């Protein structure tokens, strides 16, 4: 066997630019952001140590808490509704439906759109005056009002509506792939035993989809925490600051208001949130799937 000398270092050389980029631009930059969050930086980086002052500022900032609360509301509803609708549609599609491929293609097309595009569309549809409100009024309900988009208490729910519209099809696709992977022998055996279809789903099929629930939750949570474009396009964080989310807070304070330290602190909090959600989920999943095997 002719082992070439080059073949010993070439693979490592090929991989090294990516590793260097990851080391610098992912790990290095996270460290710099963390460091920034402990400094006096305002408009420009200023490496004077400030301890946890920026975090105290952050926790004193009413807008930050609005953002966090909005993320909690949006994240919970967005994940729960996308999953519920996605699972329902997937189960219905799994009943040997004619035109399944066509329907599936329809449910999934929103995933090809930018959140900016769907935000723009929903902004028009939900606008009080010419949008949905007027449509329902013209159907014979003249007193119907739907002003969530401009109502500070309800505006965050319009983000949920648009987000679920965009992502439910995605959850459906993942659930459907999971359903197709369920062993048909088990189902047949249950049918022989006289179990009804709903019972089979509830007792046998859905429990085996646990890993799918896990990945759907993970991805939807990830989309929710990063949600920036959708809110920017739909409400711009408004009315006022009513629909601020952490990603918008971070952007505003870092790039419009020249408060680098505070922006960095909010970015670190976002990273912590991702870690706090991902790590336990992944740990539970690896443990469970390890025990199952």
């Amino acid at each position, binding site marked *: 066997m002719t082992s*070439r000398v080059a073949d010993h270092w070439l693979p490592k050389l090929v991989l090294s630019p990516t590793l260097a980029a990851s080391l610098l631009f992912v790990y290095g*930059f*996270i460290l710099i952001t963390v460091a*920034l969050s402990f400094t006096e930086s305002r408009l420009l980086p200023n490496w004077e140590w400030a301890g946890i002052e920026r975090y105290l500022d952050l926790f004193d900032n009413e807008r930050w808490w609005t953002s966090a609360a909005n993320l909690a509301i949006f994240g919970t509803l967005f994940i729960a509704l996308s999953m519920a609708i996605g699972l329902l549609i997937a189960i219905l599609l799994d009943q040997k439906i004619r035109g399944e491929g066509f329907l599936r293609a329809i449910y*999934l097309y929103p995933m090809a759109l930018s959140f900016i595009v769907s935000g*723009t569309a929903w902004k*028009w549809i939900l606008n009080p005056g010419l949008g949905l409100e007027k449509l329902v009024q013209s159907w014979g309900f003249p007193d119907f009002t739907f002003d969530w988009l401009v109502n500070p208490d309800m505006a965050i729910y319009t983000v949920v509506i648009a987000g679920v519209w965009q992502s439910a*099809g995605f959850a459906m696709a993942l659930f459907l792939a999971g359903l197709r992977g369920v062993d048909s022998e088990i189902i047949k055996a249950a049918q022989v035993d006289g179990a009804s279809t709903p019972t089979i789903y509830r007792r046998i099929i859905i429990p085996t989809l646990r890993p799918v629930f896990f990945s759907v939750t993970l991805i939807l949570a990830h989309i929710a925490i990063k949600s920036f474009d959708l809110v920017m396009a739909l409400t711009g964080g408004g009315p006022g600051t009513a629909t601020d989310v952490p990603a918008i807070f971070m952007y505003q304070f870092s790039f419009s208001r020249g408060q*680098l330290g505070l922006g960095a602190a909010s970015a670190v909090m976002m*990273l912590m949130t991702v870690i706090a959600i991902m790590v336990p989920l992944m740990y539970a999943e690896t443990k469970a799937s390890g025990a199952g095997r």
Partner: protein
Amino acid sequence: MTKLSRACVYAVLILAALYTLAPLWVMVATSLKSLDEIRDGSLIAAPLAPTVEPWLKAWSSACTGVRCEGLKPFFWNSLLMTIPAVLISTFIGALNGYVLTQWRFRGSEVLFTALLVGCFIPFQVVLLPMARTLGMVGLSDSIFGLIFVHVVYGLAFTTLFFRNYYVSIPQDLMKAARVDGAGFFTIFWRILMPISGPIFVVCIIWQFTQIWNDFLFGVVFAGADSQPITVALNNLVRTSTGVKEYNVDMAAAIIAALPTLFVYIVAGKYFVRGLTAGAVKG
């Protein structure tokens, strides 16, 4: 299943499909109406007197902030940014995946796991240092800067795609080729490339959709002249001088969505495959 419950299943599925399609229909219909028709007519009605005026305005004369040249320049910006970024990140990802599966070395699995972290971080946590770095090397406010950023933060995903695809290729194939004297790149070109068609399509489509649809990097790192179309669309919708032209907004939104919609329509199968592969294994 009884006939009745089957009918219910179809009814629910069709209603859901109509609901999913409704916003697209409203967008298209609105974009073809005059402002008078929008004011007087119904949200979901088809245009009575279709006009392409809003489309022309959205493409070439609508204001996006101070500039009033429509979306046209930004559409080209997006293309100029997306195509190189997709090709570079995909190609590097393919090589990485090849190394990580066929040329494993001590610690390569650990390195792969470390690389995957890049798929999970919220990008907010790298924005500030990256803005500073681009400024220092003279790439801020330029399309090159955006290409660079998209390549760097796309590599984790493209590597993941190719690694998961190549991992199922038997090592024996490689060993036989090496006995025959084939080197690192020969094996890649002659043995792996010919069977990599599907994963290249999946990866390219995934990257294209991600980068074309990106807003965060565009709004943070682009200058007035290098903005991608998502940023320009958002500016267009926010810039209102006098009457709000919903028809122009909708035409602009469709223009911004056309490339990715087109890809979805011609290669939806691969799009879905990328979506589920990136998701389930990520």
